[in-house]
């Protein structure tokens, strides 16, 4: 058993109005000094074997195919633990 984490973020050039709304809310809550917030998605992919090279390659393929839309999003893959 292993857990592989996929983080998906909008590409830097794509406007993130949700992140902006969060950033605007923070000062009202007393948090100062925040210059920007970008919102993304985190996927925790549990696999039944070890997180070896082949398994990681598989998860990358999942990210490329379904988890991220690479037209507007970047993704990164890492093994937890």
């Amino acid at each position, binding site marked *: 058993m292993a857990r592989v984490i996929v983080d998906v973020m909008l590409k830097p050039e794509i*406007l993130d*109005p*949700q992140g902006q709304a969060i950033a605007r809310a923070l000062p009202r809550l007393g948090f100062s000094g925040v210059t920007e917030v970008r919102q993304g998605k985190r996927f925790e992919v549990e696999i039944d074997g070890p997180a070896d090279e082949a398994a990681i390659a598989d998860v990358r393929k999942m990210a490329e195919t*379904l988890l991220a*839309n690479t*037209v*507007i999003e970047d993704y990164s893959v890492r093994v937890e633990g």
Partner: protein
Amino acid sequence: MGAARVGVVTFPGTLDDQDAARAVRHAGGEAVPLWHADRDLKGVDAVFLPGGFSYGDYLRCGAISRFAPLMEELIPAAHAGLPVLGTCNGFQILCEAHLLPGALTRNENLHYVCRDQRVLVESNATAWTGDYTPGQEILLPVKHGEGRYVADAATVTALESGDQIVFRYLGGNPNGSVNDIAGISNEAGNVVGLMPHPEHAVEDLTGAPSVDGRGFFTSILKRFVSL
């Protein structure tokens, strides 16, 4: 020959399929229900992907629908020239399926927008817009929360120079879409996607703001009568 047969696809969560089918029949065509889980296009002449929230819009709008069994048939057929129209969620699905370039993202102001929208017809050189005139202004309902069209600069330039921007918003951009883009086509002009809803604007009886949507359906039916 008999009436042209236009397939109307239903995914779990599709909302506008009945209106789409009715619009096809209103124009004199035969509406053929297509089910997302069937690998069968039933030999239709054209396909309409209606709006709604297919698969609950989980992950991203259209991201899961794009892999439905029906889409495995539709994608190669569209590449081979089958006319396909996607409105709203249908447009999102066409972008996720890479049948159209770019993507649809959350509205700039984060508001779900539901209103009657003035739309400029930019191109009648597609399978679905032959009955319009470039420069014509039409009025169609829009209703979406994720309709902001985005694409990289090179793609937008190619769309502009290739006459692939089919519709633009007039009188206020409802979602922050780049260059006020409301709808685009692929290079061949057989695949068209737009956020506004022509299928909701074909009959006075339903309280539609206009009957300007009829042209989509008469355009596609004429195409098959003239073959």
